[in-house]
């Protein structure tokens, strides 16, 4: 027996970054908004405290902030010839749950994509000729210029610490000269640099590159954002990624939006509300609302005028597929769009070992404390003859020295025992890691669909992920790793250890929670699921937020763009859609 609840103006599914942004924006417009979150209430004041947050067992190894795979998970395979198996442990990526979502446990590396990233297909084809066979890279249907004000808005909300490299076209000394224009300086100055990023920057400069401080959602000083919410200076405790911040120092939904939002009477948050499907109107042209289940097993139907899917990308895709919205993508024919162009991040690293006189103090860290070079990202360099498009940044982030997780040792060290212990002891305080953070271009065989065999706790088919790295990624990553090795050598350490990207993609070792695509945006319904306002081409009152919109994944961390797209969507709903509901882009 399904209980039908009173109709609301807006229902938001998922209460992480984009759910909170949309809720804030639409309640500010005066709309009556209800958000449904599958997890429970968690915030700094009630749960995450300096007394308990630095707990590696509880948070990193017992997954306290991550989604519970015993309820729902996905199946995985590298290619369509294989039979996918369920992911029974978290590994490669760590989707969040509870209020704030994965926005609680990110590092805070807050980037803008390059202007050319948004026109990856046309730009690369114009410069280098046709794309490689099987590559399904697309233009986004939106430009950097359209998103610029929304990037700025998010950076102001978060109090991003950084140094601008291009203000209205004027290149700024000390910033990233390759970045797209920005309308103003970052709201806070960069974090205070420690020895390792300084050494990296010096070596990079000597090689002719342009290092700059990574843009950080970790506060370099106390900050009050435009909503009046306050953040405190970062203490460089080194517990950001995989952890909540106990000091109100990392921008998360709970430290930037939720305190102001919860005071608004036209907002309601329901936790432990697991949305099972979107309900379509009888004529199939609108979303009627959503159906969700409570922990007691009660099924509720929440009708709404506007439905916003703001869950993690795998869940947004899953909801679209299980609700029968849009045509599922078929890799054999290339037809269909839902689940198309799943992409990821392609990372590699180089470790530099110094002697005992060089004190790195790795326990002094912050999620986005580091120096970065962007010379080899996107199309910032000539790719002629290199065998790939796209790129990534090379950076030295001093994020942490967490003792259980972080103990790099030189090549050839035994994996356990006295030899390993000795190497850990000698290396812990004297090691610097350099990372490359590469793009993953979309490919015909990388996609998401429903698994034919396995179901979740609610009886729905699991999502099936089919993904592998392609030649483009290996060529790109090797090229970036070569550059990183050159910088590492110029830093003058005792020895280095390379961690190149090799072999098939594996969901076991942690890489990054930068899953993208599946509900991609574009300029027409044949190639994409949503238009540039993230409005469904199929149901005009359905909007989808998150990195599912990315037609391919550029060489930066996604959160900045995910949030900018959410603000762009909110703006379109407020200023266009409410005045004249209907498709915002004609198909």
């Amino acid at each position, binding site marked *: 027996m399904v209980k039908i609840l009173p109709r609301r103006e807006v229902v938001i599914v998922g209460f992480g970054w984009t759910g909170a942004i949309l809720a804030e924006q639409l309640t500010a417009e005066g709309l009556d908004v209800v958000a449904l979150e599958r997890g429970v209430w968690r915030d700094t004041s009630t749960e995450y*405290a300096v*007394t308990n947050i630095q707990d590696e067992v509880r948070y990193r190894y017992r997954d306290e902030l991550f989604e519970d795979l015993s309820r729902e998970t996905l199946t995985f395979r590298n290619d369509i010839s294989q039979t996918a198996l369920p992911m029974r442990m978290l590994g490669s990526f760590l989707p969040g749950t509870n209020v704030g979502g994965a926005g609680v446990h990110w590092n805070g590396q807050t980037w803008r994509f390059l202007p050319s990233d948004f026109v990856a297909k046309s730009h690369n084809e114009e410069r280098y000729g046709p794309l490689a066979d099987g590559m399904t890279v697309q233009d986004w249907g939106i430009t950097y210029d359209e998103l610029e004000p929304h990037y700025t808005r998010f950076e102001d909300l978060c109090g991003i610490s950084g140094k601008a490299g291009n203000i209205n076209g004027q290149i700024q000394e000390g910033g990233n000269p390759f970045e797209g224009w920005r309308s103003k300086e970052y709201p806070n100055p960069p974090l205070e640099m420690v020895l390792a990023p300084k050494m990296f920057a010096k070596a990079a400069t000597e090689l002719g590159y342009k290092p700059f401080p990574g843009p950080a959602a970790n506060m370099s000083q*106390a900050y009050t954002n435009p*909503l009046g919410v306050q953040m*405190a200076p970062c203490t460089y405790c080194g517990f950001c990624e995989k952890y909540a911040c*106990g000091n*109100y120092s990392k921008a998360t939904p709970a430290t930037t939006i939720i*305190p*102001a939002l919860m*005071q608004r009477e036209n907002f309601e948050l329901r936790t432990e509300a697991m949305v099972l499907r979107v309900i379509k109107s009888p004529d199939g042209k609108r979303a009627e609302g959503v159906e969700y289940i409570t922990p007691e097993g009660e099924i509720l139907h929440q009708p709404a005028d506007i439905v916003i899917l703001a869950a993690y990308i795998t869940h947004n895709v899953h909801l679209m597929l299980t609700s029968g919205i849009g045509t599922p993508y078929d890799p054999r024919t290339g037809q269909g769009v839902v689940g198309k162009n799943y992409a990821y991040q392609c990372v590699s690293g180089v470790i530099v070992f110094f002697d005992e006189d060089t004190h790195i103090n790795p326990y002094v860290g912050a999620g986005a404390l580091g120096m970065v070079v962007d010379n080899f990202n996107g199309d910032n360099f000539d790719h002629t003859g290199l065998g790939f498009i796209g790129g990534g940044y090379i950076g030295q982030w001093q994020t942490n020295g967490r003792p259980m997780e972080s103990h790099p040792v030189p090549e050839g060290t035994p994996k356990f025992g006295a030899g390993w212990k000795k190497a850990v002891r000698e290396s812990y305080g004297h090691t610097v890691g350099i990372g490359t953070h590469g793009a993953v271009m979309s490919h015909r065989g990388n996609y998401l669909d429903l698994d034919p065999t396995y179901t979740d706790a609610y009886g729905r088919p699991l999502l099936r992920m089919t993904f592998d790295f392609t030649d483009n990624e290996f060529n790109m990553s090797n090229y970036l790793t070569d550059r990183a090795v050159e910088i590492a050598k110029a830093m003058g350490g005792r020895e280095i250890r390379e961690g190149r990207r090799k072999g098939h993609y594996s969901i076991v070792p942690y890489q990054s929670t930068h899953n993208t695509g599946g509900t991609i945006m574009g300029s027409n319904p044949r190639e994409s699921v949503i238009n540039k306002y993230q409005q469904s081409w199929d149901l005009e009152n359905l909007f989808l937020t998150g990195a599912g919109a990315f037609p391919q994944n550029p060489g930066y961390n996604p959160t900045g763009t995910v949030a900018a797209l959410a603000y762009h969507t909110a703006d379109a709903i407020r200023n266009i859609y409410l005045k004249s509901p209907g498709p915002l882009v004609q198909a």
Partner: protein
Amino acid sequence: MIHPNFPKAAIVAALTALPILPAHAVAQDKNTYSTIERGLYLTRAGDCAACHTSDPEKPYAGNYPLATPFGTIHSSNLTPDDATGLGKWTADDFYKAMNEGKRPDGSGLYPAFPYTHFTLVTREDSEAIFAYLKTLEPVSQKVEKPGFPFPLNERVVMKGWNALNFDDRKFTPVDGKSAEWNRGYYLAEGLGHCAMCHSPKNMLGAEENGAAAYTGGMAEGWFAPPLKAHGNAPGLSDWSKKDVSDYLKYGRNEQTAAFGPMADVISKSTRYLSDPDLEALAAYLTDLPNTQEKDNTKTGSTQEAASSDTGKLVYDTQCAACHGAQGEGVKLQFAKLAGSNIVQSDNPTTLLRVILEGTKAVPTAKYPTPHAMPAFNWKLKNDEVVAVANYVRNAFGNSAPAVSSSDVEKLRQGS
């Protein structure tokens, strides 16, 4: 009639809050909207909801248990219910309760109801409050009888108590003080009843006045700190008027944030006060007479505690992340411990409770972030709590008598 310093925009607010005007200046009809609005404002100024609401669904229906050293008493039902509330009361009855501490039948109210302060409230203000209370939804809520032992359970003993402790006063402006100061005096001493918590009480549970007034007192198991310099604690002597008015309006200022019972006072009462009234309270409270017999600041302290290795270690590892290496705090976010009134109070109860139990700032529209101090009772042993408490009481230029392990243990046991 309006104080010349009041900004024009505040005149409307000021009009609703100027009971010291002659009676003909305010609306006479108790049922006018403006009277009822003024009654709501004054009811909030008196923080009536704090003690007269036990169930948020039934505002002002009373039966809220108040623990006193003599036993537990339950507050009355202020809704206009005939059988259990004020339904059959007249405005005269209400004024008599406010002014004399007497019920309609002439028997004495217990002074957990602050008639010792409300006696200052003018007839006009009393009537406005009564008019507002009459507009509430009547709620049938029986109030439990006071759990006092004999002879205190006999209301007749209040005659004796009143003879000793109650002075039926009228508000008379103090000559030589500004209108603003006098308004602050009226609010603080009358409806605001600040001294109920911030002054010590005698054996009979009555506030001590004179030199002892505002030197701090116990309230709901917390030590309400002195509002004037007392012992090593600076009181409000280093607070500006703006510090006081910001604190009452927003729950925080550049020195600290409100927590515990005071956070409740701010969220239910003072945040609703008009700016002129907040400024008036600030003018009065920052002008409390200094009655310190001698300047004994920086005496009787345990300066050696400031160099305690354990105390400094606990502070540096557990506290400094927010409160700063030098106790400087983060303005408007984490309390400054250097020079803090609560940290240096002779009575360490509040400091120790904050360390043990943690606490939370009250979110207000201007400062919505609910900053919290986490509990350390599970993490620090008694000797570590003692060491860090003595450290903060005597580091960063602070000075205060030592706390002991038994102080900590008593609070852990909840006594």
